[in-house]
């Protein structure tokens, strides 16, 4: 599904976030990317989602080389992903419903289909009653769930989350982890960057550990 080979990322100024990282993810697998803060977890996810381009090496998704992809093809690649960002990236001038509907509008779904899917996604994350609310009125955990709803509304093949339980208390984190497990069980490939060791222990999934941008055994 995802094949990362020998990628490095050097930022302007000489900082090397990743050095010669190679691993692969099978379809339907759940994988954790772990490491200390600044180890390159976020960068790795960004390279896979073609948000940034690697300085060297390549990323293959379903056999397609993402690193050398034309800019005009990247949007269609992204539609295969459900992305959950560390800083949520919710639109605060739009309602909960509109936030979740955005990926479907972008993909050009008909309006009735959008309404059906948005409700289904909101139902899965337990926000069905809050459609008209503004994201700013939601708690941290609810915002995170809204972000998940937006990521899964497109029924993506690959779900990627960057520190999804970062600043949530244990009970909320438990809930979120349960959701990821459920998605994985219905066949979604899940990639989670986290430093939350308890989460890994609970889910018992494979782990890729980064240390100062290098793959550690």
């Amino acid at each position, binding site marked *: 599904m995802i094949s990362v080979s020998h990628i490095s990322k050097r930022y302007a100024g000489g900082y090397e976030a990743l050095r010669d990282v190679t691993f692969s993810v099978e379809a339907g697998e759940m994988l954790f990317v772990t490491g200390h803060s600044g180890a390159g977890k976020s960068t790795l996810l960004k390279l896979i989602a073609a948000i*940034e381009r690697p300085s060297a090496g390549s990323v293959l998704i379903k056999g397609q080389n993402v690193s050398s992809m034309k800019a005009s093809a990247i*949007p269609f690649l992204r539609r295969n992903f459900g*992305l959950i960002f560390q800083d949520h990236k919710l*639109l605060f001038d739009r309602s909960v419903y509109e936030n979740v509907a*955005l*990926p479907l509008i*972008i993909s*050009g779904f008909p309006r009735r289909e959008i309404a059906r899917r948005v409700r289904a996604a909101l139902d899965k994350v337990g926000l069905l009653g809050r459609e008209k609310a503004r994201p700013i009125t939601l708690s941290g955990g609810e915002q995170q769930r809204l972000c998940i709803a937006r990521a899964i509304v497109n029924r993506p093949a690959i779900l990627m989350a960057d520190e999804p339980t970062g600043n949530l208390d244990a009970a909320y984190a438990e809930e979120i982890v349960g959701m990821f497990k459920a998605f994985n069980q219905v066949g979604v490939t899940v990639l989670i960057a986290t430093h939350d060791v308890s989460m890994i222990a609970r889910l018992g999934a494979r782990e890729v550990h980064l240390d100062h941008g290098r793959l550690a055994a």
Partner: protein
Amino acid sequence: MNWLMLHLDMLKESIGRLAQQPFATLLNVVVFGIALSLPVGFYLVLSNLQQVAGQLAAEPQISVFMALNADPEEVSTVEQRLRRHPEVGRYEFVPRDRALARLKRNSGLGDVLAELRSNPLPDAFVVTARTPRPDVLEQLQTEAAGWPRVEHVQLDSDWARKLDAVLAIGRLAVSLLAVLLSVALVAITFNTIRLQILTRRDEIEVSKLIGATNPFIRRPFLYFGALQGLVGGAAAWLIVAVSVQILNFGLTNLATLYGTNLRLAGLGLIDSIGLLTFAAILGWIGAWLSVSRHLWQIEPK
């Protein structure tokens, strides 16, 4: 159907955005209106002059003046040559006495002319060519000038052609003005859209992250730019229409004094549609440049 709905939604959204900032929108529309009405107004004046010149030059005549002391026999020789000439369509003989009488009547110089001891005007023929092509006319002119006792041959369309040449320069000047102002209007739209992008940069960023194509992101801004241009073009149309009415009001006085019917024609349907389309295209271009620049800046490196 879905595609149509998408565009209708965009249009509705753009109208909403225009209405959200009535003051900024009004300013932009006024700038568009004034900037476009200048070249359009000049163009209108030029095309009115053009029409007058065109009417006069459409049937150019050649005046053949005889020598002052030509006798009637010599005049009739020239007349026979004209009658037989294949390129001559019609001709009219204007005897010197009639020419003088007409001059006294029309020019208001009766008193001065009465002082003259002898008639200074020669006999003349006013000739209309069968085919009013410039080359034919010129050939006829040189030919007639060579006939015996013919003093001078004048091509009456000369001044019309000179006016035409002046108008051509005028049109060039208007085109230059139009180009300069168009660039200014594109720049204004660019800046307006840039400000809008700043307030919506999160939305653009998130949309791109979840798979929006560049055309998708550009579309609402393009609609906005084109719509603002269109309204600005309508403002220009209104300014020109009102100005023409005001000028015509003034011209009515002038025309009664001269005993003619002088009126400026307003913008025709085709020109009006052209103006609106052009204004919309300028707005569209400004918006396109603005969004494309922003998209290029946030492209992953």
